[in-house]
């Protein structure tokens, strides 16, 4: 252990010492100082948030409806519950979607809720849900309906699966129920799993669309700020066919044939790894962990995908596209690099982004000194090799683990055993290495950071940027430091791919150099000016 690491460890211990005993127990192990000489370092993650702590986490419903189901544009997602949950998850994640033809369905700008009232809580809400579905069918004629449950639904025992079955029979419209009550898990993560299960059980594998050449699914890409569109543009330029995107700008229709793709790309590991694994188990489809945020990461991803298919023409086209894209962005990137270099950042986002954005930050000369996730699991920190050792507990046992067997008709392996072995050495094939391995010694990794810890780390690390979400943003600004939202991109984007990197660099450079920061202290509070300005005023008078 170096002095730097030891000193930082003492600091972390100091922060923890303010907690009452039970809160200390709840937070112990969630904060580590990276020390690669001690590898593998174990994180405590995906456990309950300590009550009373100002957490940044959300709930199971937010993970299911808000993250995974919400972006599917051709389905009517009905929130079954009181009005709040549907209202708050209405248009707030910036998952964009567009339609090609006027007759195509796009319900993204709509919020559908059963707006349960007290009588529904007392007498049950199934009838109201049935009626709501009838009204949806009558007004919108959707091809797909999804029901997302909120807290009271499970408590009063509404059987939303029975209602879904009734709706399918009554109207011939596929209706899927998600029992994603907010309390079901310790964070959004449980909701991702529930959504993954629902889509895999009821949608994926039911379609028969023709497979194009070099066909891909992009998993865990939610098209925030148009990221997915930028990724698709690059992949299509190279010559890939996109079978489906889960779920940004995605459709239920596309998802049905996702099992036919040659390869799955996994962007957000946390929210979609269940589908990636289930596709592999049932259909033999491999997945690669990609990261389209950052120039080097994007290049790496493109090269890995080309190498997976192994066709020279594809590899050549990939290199040509990389060269062309790089030539276009490099001069502008250099300008922003000059403005940003030497700064430090803290990243606390979601379940993958604190990992994804580090490359992009380092490409403009910014080191990440603290990183962490709201709702990640141990594998997101330590790598997938830890999965067999993750202990089951009352909370994660709550979520169904689907038992998958190979599909006799559609199971196929694209790679020979030898080739698979060879590629596994060269890329993240069906593997994710996690966050800790990319961090430097002495840096901090925090799981489920809370308001108090964030405030303390801001004081100690004094970073130039704290990149997080809206709940943290204005706290950081009050401290006179820049905060960048990496959930919503501060309503900018895309940040993915080559062109997105420039937009990101521009936004960060703009945020760091906006004159507001230099105006915080008024002249009369800057000691050296006090006397002078007073005299000046006197003279004018």
């Amino acid at each position, binding site marked *: 252990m170096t002095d730097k690491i030891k000193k930082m460890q003492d600091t972390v211990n100091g922060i923890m010492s303010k907690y009452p005993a039970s809160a200390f127990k709840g937070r112990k192990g969630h904060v580590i100082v990276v020390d690669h000489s001690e590898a593998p370092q174990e994180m405590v993650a995906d456990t309950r948030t300590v009550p009373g702590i100002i957490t940044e986490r959300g709930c199971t419903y937010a993970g299911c409806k808000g993250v995974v189901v919400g972006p599917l544009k051709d389905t009517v997602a009905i929130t079954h519950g009181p009005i709040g949950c549907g209202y708050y998850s209405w248009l707030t994640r910036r998952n964009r979607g567009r339609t090609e033809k006027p007759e195509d369905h796009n319900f993204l700008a709509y919020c559908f809720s059963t707006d349960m009232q007290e009588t529904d809580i007392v007498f049950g809400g199934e009838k109201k849900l049935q009626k709501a579905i009838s009204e949806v069918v009558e007004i919108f004629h959707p091809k797909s309906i999804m029901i997302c449950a909120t807290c009271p639904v499970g408590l009063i025992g509404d059987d939303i699966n029975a209602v879904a079955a009734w709706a399918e029979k009554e109207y011939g419209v596929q209706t899927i129920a998600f029992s994603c009550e907010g*309390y079901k898990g310790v964070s959004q993560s449980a909701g991702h799993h529930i959504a993954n299960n629902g889509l895999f059980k009821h949608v994926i594998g039911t379609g028969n669309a023709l497979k194009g050449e070099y066909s891909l699914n992009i998993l865990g890409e939610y098209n925030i700020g148009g990221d997915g569109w930028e990724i698709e543009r690059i992949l299509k330029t190279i010559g890939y066919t996109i079978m489906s995107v889960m779920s940004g700008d995605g459709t239920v229709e596309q998802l049905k044939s996702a099992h036919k793709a040659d390869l799955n790309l996994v962007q957000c590991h946390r929210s979609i790894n269940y589908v990636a694994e289930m596709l592999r188990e049932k259909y033999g489809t491999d997945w690669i962990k990609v990261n389209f945020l950052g120039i080097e990461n994007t290049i790496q991803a493109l090269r890995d995908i080309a190498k997976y298919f192994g066709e020279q023409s594809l590899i050549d086209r990939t290199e040509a596209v990389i060269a062309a894209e790089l030539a276009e962005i490099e001069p502008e990137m250099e300008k922003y690099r000059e403005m940003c270099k030497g700064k430090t950042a803290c990243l606390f986002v979601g379940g993958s982004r604190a990992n994804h954005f580090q490359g992009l930050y380092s490409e403009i000369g910014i080191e990440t000194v603290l990183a962490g996730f709201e709702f990640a699991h141990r594998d997101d920190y330590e790598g997938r090799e830890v999965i067999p050792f993750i202990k089951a507990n009352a909370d994660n046992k709550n979520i169904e683990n689907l038992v998958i067997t190979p599909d006799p008709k559609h199971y196929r392996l694209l790679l020979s055993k030898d080739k698979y072995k060879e590629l596994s050495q060269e890329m993240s094939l069906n593997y994710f290495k996690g966050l800790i391995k990319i961090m430097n010694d002495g840096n901090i990794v925090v799981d489920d950071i809370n308001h108090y810890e964030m405030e303390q780390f801001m004081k100690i690390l004094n970073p130039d940027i704290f990149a997080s979400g809206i709940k943290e943003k204005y706290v950081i600004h009050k401290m006179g430091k820049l905060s960048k939202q990496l959930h919503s991109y501060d309503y900018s984007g895309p940040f993915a791919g080559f062109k997105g990197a420039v937009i990101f660099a521009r936004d960060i450079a703009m945020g760091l150099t906006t004159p507001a920061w230099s105006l915080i202290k008024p002249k009369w509070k800057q000691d050296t000016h006090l006397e002078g300005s007073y005299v000046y005023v006197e003279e004018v008078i």
Partner: protein
Amino acid sequence: MLDHTPKECIERKSLVINPAKTCQPLGATYAALGIHRCLPHSHGSQGCQMYFRSHLNRHFREPVEAATSSFTEGAAVFGGGSNLKAALKNIFAIYEPDIVAISTTCLSETIGEDIPTYILQAQVPEGKYVIHANTPSYQGSHITGFSNMTKGMVKYLSAAGGKSNGKINVLPGFVNPGDMREIKRILRSMKADYIMFPDTSGVLDAPLTGEYHIFPEGGTKIKDIIDSGNSLGTLALGHFASTDSAQELKKKCKVPYQALTTPIGITATDDFLMAIAEFSGQPVSAELEEERGQVIDIMADLHQHYYGKEVALFGDPDMLTGLTQFLLELGMKPKYILTGTPGDLFEKEVNQMLSQAGTQAKVKSAGDLFTLHQWIKQDPVDLIIGNTYGKYIARAEDIPLVRFGFPIMDRGVHSYMPVVGYKGAMRLIEMISNTLLDRVDRDTADEDMELIM
């Protein structure tokens, strides 16, 4: 934009599409932030608090700190008493607030949590306070939640000491910090000694100084809320957000009250000033009378820009009641007036205003924006006034929008600026007439372009 909204209305009894309200605990959280050094706490799943905080963050662009009981399935089945007690212990140890204001959620209400008993069983440090309000999400709206939490302040804190403090209580209702500042300025101008609660000014519009404090300078002091039981009277602004609390204060401490329309526009502000004058015995100040004259001057000068224009307005009931009155004073035609908050009183009050002005409109409580959009499709308007969600309808139908109410998440500064009082009236006229004129400038032919308007 909103291409799937048909012109023809099909009656809906169960499905809400594009709501014009949200749930109670959000309003309760906002009200609680208006107490000095208060940490709001949500007794339910942690997602609720995440949603309230982020929604308030987006409207105010300010930190919103609030804690949660972080229910998991075990707590949902066996009760969240131990969660709440642990939460209170942690909150007082870590964040050191003076008071914690607990609101319930649909989860904790459905399982019937007994919050007062939990509070009694909790370890609350000497000199600190814990209050609560029942705010089931399946009743009313965020405005009901605001009202319930304000009432909770009265129930737990207000006390009559037997001696008058010579002050007026003002309950401002669910308005912006900019409005709360304006109400206080009016009271100071009237030389009235007052207690206003809740007061989010100085909390949700705190300055950036480079130093962060979890509890900023603003908010009503606990001792003042306690002292509200000794006041001369209470002015409750807005029937939906404030009247219940004023009644509670009357019941508990025998403080008389007047229920007033949220002071938007001339008449409602006039009434507010006269009510202050009545309780305080001070005349309306020359400063405010001058401001009033300025607004009337503006109204005479600019009426041609907005007179007779048809307006669709939506939002929270108290704000809409005040705004409807003002639009009528401007000679505009409110055509559709819709709130998501349930309550027949709203329709009654607004219809009364309209009939007094010799006009009528479609007025609806417990409505949604899908309905409003369909009305507009059937018979359009010149202007929409409402919150950020209105911009989708505005774009779909190519109708200008004036942003008013809560939430406004796509524009800044609004939360600092008043819509109440005469200053607020001036600002509203400026926003309405500029928006209409921008549209004229955009649509007019080159040869018809006017330099002076």
